[in-house]
């Protein structure tokens, strides 16, 4: 038996325990030094790689500089500099000789001057002391001494011009002092002369420096050197040096602890860090084939911010990083935590493809944000596909919100007026009172009120009411719906086509804006029946007769010339919005419908009506009452009269963005005839559909069902439907959708699956975004809800996810199923809309973060809404990089007026006066009477500027937009023109009619291919005319106007004006500013 005392040992347990202790200590150390500080490695890598990157870049810059120094213009400057120095050399040498002489004279005078001044100073001091002490005798003696010194003659060896020679001069103190100061003045003069002589060379030198700077983009070599030294000597591994603290927000962002290159001034991409042949590259990154995930992540992390221009506007020191990008800026312990991809962090980092969501948070009001391409597409889709028909989103369909505000204000006014009338009546009662209830003072007060207060107040209210009513009807006219007016159905389409379309619009017209609802056949039937029943009955409305009256003999499909129609369709500008041809052969723009199959569905007379003036309603509508136009007396003899009081606004224009092209009826007929031949699918839809045959009870049921489903699916969000005029939106508001709590998004039965990994033990390691199996996020929801279309292996369209995805697995009645239709977005469109929604948040930033534009910026932001609404960019370049779809058509190649695309609007604000522009926008035909069949300013173009019938509000916004885009001062004040003298006028008339002066060839007469000069005085700003004359191709590349007609300065070289000493261009500008019909006639006589 073992002795328990001697044999029992705790060695093993202790050994194990100490081993464990050791292990955990080691772990603690590891975690403290390395594990929780992964950025240490990044920082070291960064320093190593970036120093070399900079050295590499410096070499490039040096080489570039050397190249530039060899450039011809640089060498010329160098020559000029040398020549200037040479020129100045002789004079400089002369000045220098003078300067030397002065210096020598100065030196020669100095000893005598010092001696005399020293003595004088001393005696003067003593003298003053003596005078203070009233020692008269002493003072006198001193005065004598001073006099003596002043009279003393100093012998000065004054240097002569020739070196080494001197001339001995005797001078007293006063003379020496005078000479001294004159020398000083002389020296100043000479120094000024030197500076003037050196001036030209110095000027060239600074020109050379700025030439270099302008051509070498980025840092200069010495600046790069400074950064390299800084990195080598001052770089410290740590957090403090790399964090941003934005005090007023209480924000600490440590993003740059890892993203060290983010704010480097030398733009650096992954390629620069890796493929540029750096020595360290191999050492640090290794062989690309054995690349680890971590390494590629690291490489991505070290690059510079790809948009340094944005950082300039949004200084990170003031905005931080995470407010734009999302993520947990303070966390540095892991990639996942730092980026906020964690279930307990509410603002995860936006992924790269959605990065622009960050812009939306503060730039909520802009439809078009410079540089935010994805976001802009998202907003455009939201606007063009009519998402706002069902979902309220602030800014979109603004008219509805404005109308609500007006209604509220009108309510308040009515109430106030009632109260006012009440107190007026009371005051009147007071005056009538015979019981002496009131004092005289009180009665006086009442009289005063009756005389002075009530009438004014009432009149003020009336003014406001009138303005509100005007704005109300203008808003109704300006409000557009995405889809067509369905009250026109019976006049517009064949009944046989209707159900086919409603069932699956994308089958009839691939790429249509109309989404596909998931309808059962009976739903399609009943909806068709209801819409048909509630459309205007064209026969009872007598619309054909009215059309016949207007169009006369042209209302005849057989007479249509389809070939001419095709040509007109292609050249008048229809294809700026519409496309023709299917699939890859489609040409034109997809802003509006593709018309390849329009002939299969449409009725010819309606097409005529529509092309001639799409704004003209079959019957006026009362948008504020339900279904009133069906009972309108103008339309139905037995109908009710329109009553403004109860019915509200009366609308006579159609709510479409399609403009009126002011075409004559024969052209309308030919275009319509051509469109009738467009039957790409070969369908005829002539048969009478079953829903139209139903009668009696069956019909009743169809209509009742139809009404239910039309209301259920919110058709009235996009279409005008009889009886649904005042219908509200059926969807949820999306203004703050991106920050809605996740548990309020309906993931259906997928909630658990979506969060699957988030509940696993690894939840703090795994990024919840990246993993397909883990998508319990806003992005995960939006992407799936929107869905997208992909092509499968056979090239067939395949829907991926979609609005009904979250219905999967549920047993639900038709009424309970999700209603949102499939929009068949592409993957990129899905990303764009997702980005927009992710950025639509209720952000918590202080006010200074938000973009609240004023003045110029506001005008631009508001203008974009109108520009996009009417698709101005279909014809015109509005921004510098715009490529209007019309100009891209092969036949618009500028070979002739017929083939010339519409003008660019870049710089329009600097070109035309705002009052001219507003007039032109109201009526582009610039006709005095009715709208005419022509372009107002460019009658020679085949392509037509149509009449958009803008509301006054829209005209104002557009004019302000163009002025703002061109940075014009507001208000722009027209400069007075200096009239031409008789001699100048004669000279200009000669220049205009001279064969050397080609102006008349294009700007006047029958073969006109440029704007008529008679419009110039009212239209063009003088500064623009001048710039245009000097170099038209710079303002409008590819223009027919030749360049180089004028020189920019004397000697002027415009041949017909030879002999005129003044500014030739200026004379032209002045002449054009006074050109009118009378002048045109005078010229005609001369010819």
């Amino acid at each position, binding site marked *: 038996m073992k002795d328990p005392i001697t044999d029992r040992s705790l060695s093993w347990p202790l050994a194990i325990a100490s*081993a464990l202790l*050791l*292990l955990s*200590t*080691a772990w603690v*150390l*590891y975690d403290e030094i*390395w594990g929780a500080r992964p950025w240490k490695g990044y920082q070291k890598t960064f320093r190593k790689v970036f120093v070399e990157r900079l050295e590499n870049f410096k070499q490039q810059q040096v080489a570039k500089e050397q190249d530039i120094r060899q450039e011809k213009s640089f060498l010329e400057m160098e020559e000029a500099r040398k020549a200037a120095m040479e020129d100045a050399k002789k004079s400089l040498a002369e000045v220098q000789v003078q300067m030397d002489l002065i210096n020598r004279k100065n030196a020669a005078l100095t000893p005598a001057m010092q001696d005399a001044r020293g003595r004088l100073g001393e005696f003067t001091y003593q003298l003053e002391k003596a005078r203070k002490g009233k020692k008269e005798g002493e003072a006198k003696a001193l005065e004598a001494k001073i006099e003596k010194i002043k009279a003393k003659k100093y012998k000065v060896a004054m240097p002569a011009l020739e070196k080494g020679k001197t001339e001995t001069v005797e001078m007293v103190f006063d003379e020496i002092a005078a000479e001294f100061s004159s020398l000083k003045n002389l020296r100043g003069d000479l120094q000024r002369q030197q500076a003037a002589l050196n001036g030209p060379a110095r000027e060239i030198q600074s020109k050379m420096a700025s030439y270099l700077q302008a051509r070498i983009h980025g840092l200069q070599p010495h600046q790069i050197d400074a950064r390299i030294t800084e990195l080598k000597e001052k770089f410290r591994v740590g957090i403090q040096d790399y964090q941003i603290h934005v005090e007023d927000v209480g924000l600490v962002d440590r993003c740059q602890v890892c993203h060290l290159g983010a704010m480097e001034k030398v733009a650096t991409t992954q390629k620069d860090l890796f*493929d540029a*042949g750096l020595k360290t590259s*191999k*050492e*640090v*990154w*290794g*062989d*690309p084939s*054995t690349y680890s995930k971590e*390494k590629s992540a690291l490489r991505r992390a070290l690059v510079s911010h790809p948009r340094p221009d944005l950082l300039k506007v949004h200084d990170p020191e003031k905005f931080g990083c995470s407010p734009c990008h999302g993520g947990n800026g303070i966390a540095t312990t892991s990639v996942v935590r730092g980026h906020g991809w964690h279930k307990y962090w509410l603002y995860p980092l936006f992924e790269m493809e959605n990065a622009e969501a960050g812009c939306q948070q503060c730039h909520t009001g802009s439809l078009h944000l410079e540089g935010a391409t994805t976001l802009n597409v998202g907003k455009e889709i939201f606007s063009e596909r009519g998402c706002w028909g069902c979902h309220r989103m602030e800014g979109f369909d603004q008219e509805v919100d404005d109308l609500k505000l007006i209604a509220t204000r009108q309510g308040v006014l009515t109430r106030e007026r009632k109260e006012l009338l009440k107190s007026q009546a009371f005051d009147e009662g007071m005056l009538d009172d015979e019981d002496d209830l009131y004092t005289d003072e009180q009665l006086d007060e009442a009289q005063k009120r009756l005389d002075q207060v009530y009438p004014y107040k009432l009149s003020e209210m009336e003014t406001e009411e009138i303005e509100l009513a005007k704005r109300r009807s203008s808003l109704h006219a300006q409000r557009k719906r995405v889809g067509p007016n369905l009250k026109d159905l019976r006049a517009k389409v064949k009944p046989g086509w209707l159900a086919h379309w409603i069932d699956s619009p994308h089958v009839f017209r691939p790429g249509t804006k109309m989404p596909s609802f998931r309808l059962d056949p009976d739903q399609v039937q009943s909806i068709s029946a209801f819409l048909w029943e509630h459309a205007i009955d064209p026969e009872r409305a007598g619309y054909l007769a009215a059309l016949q009256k207007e169009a006369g003999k042209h209302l005849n499909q057989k007479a249509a010339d389809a070939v001419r129609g095709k040509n007109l369709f292609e050249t008048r500008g229809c294809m700026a919005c519409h496309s023709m041809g299917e699939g890859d052969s489609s040409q034109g723009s997809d802003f509006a419908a593709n018309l390849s199959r329009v002939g299969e569905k449409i009725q010819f007379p309606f097409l005529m009506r529509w092309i001639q003036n799409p704004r003209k309603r079959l019957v006026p509508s009362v948008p504020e009452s339900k279904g009133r136009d069906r009972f309108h007396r103008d339309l139905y003899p037995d109908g009710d009269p329109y009553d403004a009081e109860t019915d509200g606004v009366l609308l006579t224009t159609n709510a479409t963005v399609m403009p009126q092209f002011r075409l004559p009826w024969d052209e309308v007929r030919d275009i319509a005839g051509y469109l009738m031949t467009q039957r790409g699918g070969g369908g005829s839809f002539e048969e009478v559909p079953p829903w139209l045959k139903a009668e009696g009870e069956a019909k009743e049921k169809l209509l009742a069902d139809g009404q239910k489903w039309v209301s259920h699916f919110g058709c009235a969000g996009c279409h005008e439907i009889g009886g649904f005029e005042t219908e509200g939106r059926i969807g949820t508001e999306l203004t703050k959708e991106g920050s809605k709590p996740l548990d309020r998004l309906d993931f259906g039965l997928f909630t658990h699956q979506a969060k699957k990994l988030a509940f696993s033990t690894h939840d703090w390691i795994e990024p919840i975004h990246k993993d397909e199996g883990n998508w319990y996020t806003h992005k995960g929801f939006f992407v799936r809800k929107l869905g997208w279309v992909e092509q499968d292996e056979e090239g067939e369209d395949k829907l991926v996810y979609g609005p009904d995805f979250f219905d999967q697995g549920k047993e639900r009645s038709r009424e309970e199923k999700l209603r949102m239709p499939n929009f068949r977005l592409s993957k990129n469109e899905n990303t764009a809309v997702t980005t927009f929604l992710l950025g639509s948040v209720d952000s918590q930033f202080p006010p200074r973060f938000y973009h609240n534009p004023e003045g110029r910026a506001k005008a631009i932001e508001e203008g974009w809404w109108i520009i996009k609404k009417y698709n101005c960019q279909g014809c015109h370049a509005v921004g510098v990089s715009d490529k209007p779809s019309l100009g891209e058509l092969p036949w618009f190649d*500028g*070979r*002739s*007026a017929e083939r010339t695309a519409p003008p660019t609007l870049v710089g329009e604000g600097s070109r035309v006066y705002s009052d001219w522009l507003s007039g032109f926008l109201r009526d582009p035909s610039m006709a005095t009477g009715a709208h005419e069949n022509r372009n107002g300013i460019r009658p020679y173009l085949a392509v037509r500027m149509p009449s958009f019938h803008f509301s006054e509000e829209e005209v104002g916004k557009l004019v302000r937009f163009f002025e703002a885009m061109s940075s014009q001062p507001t208000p722009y004040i027209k400069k007075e023109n200096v009239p031409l003298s008789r001699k100048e006028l004669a000279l200009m008339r000669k220049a205009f009619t001279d*064969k*050397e*002066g*080609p102006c008349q*060839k*294009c700007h006047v007469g*029958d*073969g006109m*291919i440029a704007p008529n000069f008679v419009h110039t005085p009212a239209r063009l700003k003088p500064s623009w005319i001048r710039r245009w004359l000097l170099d*038209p*191709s710079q303002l409008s*590349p*590819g*223009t*027919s*106007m*030749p*360049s*180089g*007609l004028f020189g920019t300065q004397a000697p002027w070289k415009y*041949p017909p004006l030879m002999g005129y000493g003044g500014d030739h261009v200026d004379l032209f500008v002045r002449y054009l500013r006074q050109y009118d019909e009378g002048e045109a006639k005078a010229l005609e006589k001369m010819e």
Partner: protein
Amino acid sequence: MKSKNLWIVCILASALCFLSGCGGGDDNESTGSNAGTTGTSSKKDFTPEMGSVSVAGVVQFEGSAPARKKLNINKDVAGCMAEHGKTPPLSETVIVNDNKTLRNVVVYVSKGLAKYSFKKVKKTEPVVFDQVGCVYVPHVQAVMVGQPIHVKSSDDLAHNVHWKSKKNGDKNISQSSAGAIDKTTFVAKREEIGTAVFQCDIHGWMNAFVPVFKHPFYATTGEDGKFSFDMKLPAGKYTLTAWHEKFGKKSVKVEVKDGEAKSVVFTYSAKP
């Protein structure tokens, strides 16, 4: 204490391993890219002695020749018509010669010359376009990259010489009297055929095509519909392409041997 040190040593060692692991790699990439660059710079300079094959041929036209439309001269009528007498000039878009051949077809080598550089056979003789009676003469004239282009006017009225191209810039100047000449148009890059043109905006019917080639193997058919290259081709496989303003492109593949005289026939027809 010892074992703790050991741990630290271990950690350091593994860290070192990790770091040294990054140091590996080979030169594949850099040599690859080197090979690429030497590939592009290894072009042979072509000299006329290298060629031995003369290429010539004719462009036939099948079917009835479309009638040439009269140009609609509606501006400067007197000045423009001075050259033409009473009948206005005819459109030059399609000209079928009397011998059933097609005029103004540009035939050129479109493939097979990639291995040559043509720096040593630069053409310095300027090509001249004249404006006579408000018509460009000639209507089609090909140039080699770098060859000077002169545009002059024989009309005593105002023209604007509007040069339009995809790769060689745009330019628009005014020439207002007979004898004016412009020598500033410069072509430095090859153009997709048909994209470089001169036009006069004042007289919208006036235009001329300027096909631009990097090599000298091109020719334009004239009144007899025949073409022949001015320089001989080296033996090899080539694709010859013919281009016509209205009827577009047609190509044939040819293989030629040293000393051969190759004859090629292209055929266009009114209906494609």
